[in-house]
């Protein structure tokens, strides 16, 4: 340990009193910062693998039942997805700006950026709430629970007709109106699966947004106490990186579910 240490770490130890955020097992702030970065990137890699499994399910299902994504897409309101995309991209900007503010010792800007990021996350969840509550109300649900109301089916048929009309899709939806839906297993099973995948992926993403809101709230408290500066802002940096991953996953979810049929 100390026998292998050069003059540099000894120099850093001399500054221990000044660098109060330096953990004792690190020689320098730089080393501590870089080690923390590797840690958070390893975590982000597991997040990619985590969602990767679900993207695999999506891909297999899409490759084998392309027509169902075509119909499923009309049950979703792309305008809502687009608003949420813009909100998340903006929140990513403010999260990145928060890191910049911390690096420049701009406490007021740091706190404002974190608050804006938090508000964007809340907006995202409010839009999500409207989407989900509409689907729950109209019976557009996962698996066996998939039992859309006539009103919803008529609405979807109208949407398809408005877009130029796809006789096969309309015929399919008209057939679903003859209840009970669950007994038409051969027909609706893939659509049930579509909504299982939709709710699983967007739901898991939504949970990530909620976790992010908790973390950002914690940062707001710490930042307003003046606990971050240009030598110590790893929590801001790490949460911002996590938040960008949440944005990144939505960037893929939005076109895959809402836009392409």
């Amino acid at each position, binding site marked *: 340990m100390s026998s292998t240490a050069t003059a540099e770490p000894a120099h850093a130890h001399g500054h221990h009193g000044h660098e109060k955020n330096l953990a004792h097992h690190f020689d320098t702030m730089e080393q501590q910062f870089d080690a923390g970065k590797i840690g958070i990137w390893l975590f982000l890699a597991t997040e990619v693998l985590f969602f990767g499994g679900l993207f695999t399910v999506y891909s297999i299902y899409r490759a084998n039942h392309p027509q169902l994504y075509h119909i499923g897409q009309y049950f979703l309101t792309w305008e809502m997805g687009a608003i949420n995309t813009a909100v998340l991209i903006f929140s990513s900007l403010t999260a990145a700006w928060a890191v910049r503010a911390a690096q420049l010792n701009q406490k007021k800007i740091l706190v404002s950026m974190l608050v804006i990021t938090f508000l964007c996350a809340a907006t995202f969840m409010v839009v999500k709430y409207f989407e989900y509550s509409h689907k729950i109300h109209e019976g557009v649900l996962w698996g066996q629970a998939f039992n859309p109301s006539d009103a919803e089916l008529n609405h979807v048929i109208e949407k398809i007709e408005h877009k130029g009309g796809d006789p096969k899709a309309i015929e399919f939806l008209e057939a679903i109106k003859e209840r009970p839906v669950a007994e038409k297993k051969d027909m609706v099973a893939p659509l049930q699966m579509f909504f299982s995948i939709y709710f699983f992926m967007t739901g898991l993403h939504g949970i990530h947004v909620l976790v992010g809101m908790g973390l950002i709230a914690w940062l707001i408290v710490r930042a307003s106490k003046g606990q971050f500066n240009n030598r110590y802002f790893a929590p801001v940096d790490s949460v911002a990186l996590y938040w*960008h991953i949440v944005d990144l996953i939505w960037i893929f979810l939005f076109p*895959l579910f809402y*836009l392409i049929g």
Partner: protein
Amino acid sequence: MSKHDEHHTLGHVMPASTLINVFLALIVLTVVTVAVAQKDLGPLNVWVALFIASIKGSIVCAYFMHLKYDKKLNLLIFGISVVLVLIMITFTIVDSHFYYNNIDSYQQSETFQAAKAAAASSAAK
């Protein structure tokens, strides 16, 4: 060494103009992906959407997530996870297509047709 200067800021500070430009680029690409989706390109739909999403994702990684300026190790860790997911998706799709012949031949078999007819008649009762 200036590296140990106490006032030295850790990490790379992203210029404000870069952040704003990246944000604008992401919004423009979102508009593009929505606009393109209004046209039915058939099987190309997915690939165009994925292509645009990948550009957006790369921009987020490079600038918002600082990967362009970070230690290359971080890029390597993240890159490996993305490559692993792509391998997983590709191989699973290829694998699932391998059994289509088996499914088709089973569905045309007498055993299956008889079972289907029996199920239909019991459902009718």
